[in-house]
């Protein structure tokens, strides 16, 4: 796993660097930011959606299901005290030629994919203040 670094640009806008990939995160205008990029929690949702899309597309490609591409629409349910994500709601659009039997199988497989499985498994979060 490569190192991920997060450095400040201005305000609550931060630059995230992973290898040679750089992107920006910021809070919305009502949350003290400038909406200069997705909020961190939105990246969390994006990670879940991208993981699912990647794995399901690979499955469909390997089975020759080619009548359309995989796409994912998702949103988050938030909960207060403490503010957190209470749920990830994901709709996965499949190629039209995926048989019904595979749809159910894919739904079960999706929960075992890296990001969904990580979220469901409540990973350890180890923080040190330097």
């Amino acid at each position: 796993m490569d190192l991920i670094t997060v450095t400040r640009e201005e305000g609550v806008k931060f630059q995230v660097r992973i290898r040679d990939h750089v992107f920006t995160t910021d809070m919305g205008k009502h949350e003290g930011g400038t909406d200069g990029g997705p909020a961190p929690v939105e990246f969390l949702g994006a990670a879940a959606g991208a993981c699912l899309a990647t794995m399901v597309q690979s499955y469909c490609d390997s089975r020759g299901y080619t009548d359309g591409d995989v796409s994912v629409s998702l949103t988050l349910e938030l909960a207060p005290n403490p503010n957190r994500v209470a749920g990830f709601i994901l709709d996965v659009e499949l190629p039209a030629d995926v048989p019904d039997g595979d749809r159910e199988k894919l739904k079960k497989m999706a929960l075992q994919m890296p990001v969904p499985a990580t979220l469901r498994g409540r990973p350890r979060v180890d923080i040190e203040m330097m």
Partner: protein
Amino acid sequence: MEMVELGGKQVEIDEDGFIQDPDIWDEAVALSLAKTEGVDELTDNHWKLVNYLREYYLEYNMAPMIRKLCKQTGFSLKEVYDLFPSGPAKGACKVAGLPKPTGCV
């Protein structure tokens, strides 16, 4: 809190524009609220969502979870966002006159 005119009535709203008294809601208020969310016209599909949200709220005193909203109305998540671009909570619940939900985005 501030008072604004919605649907020809003086209505108290919170800092996010949600009305504070669900009983003051009517279709004219809904249309005014929709305009604040960038929705200029409420179609039958908008009303299907709005009416489901109101009926659920009046029965359970809370907004439904998003998946339940989708299943009960028959809309996919993407279709809900097509109707209310600011989402089921910030958009649809606001237009339905519900208090700001804590359970969804």
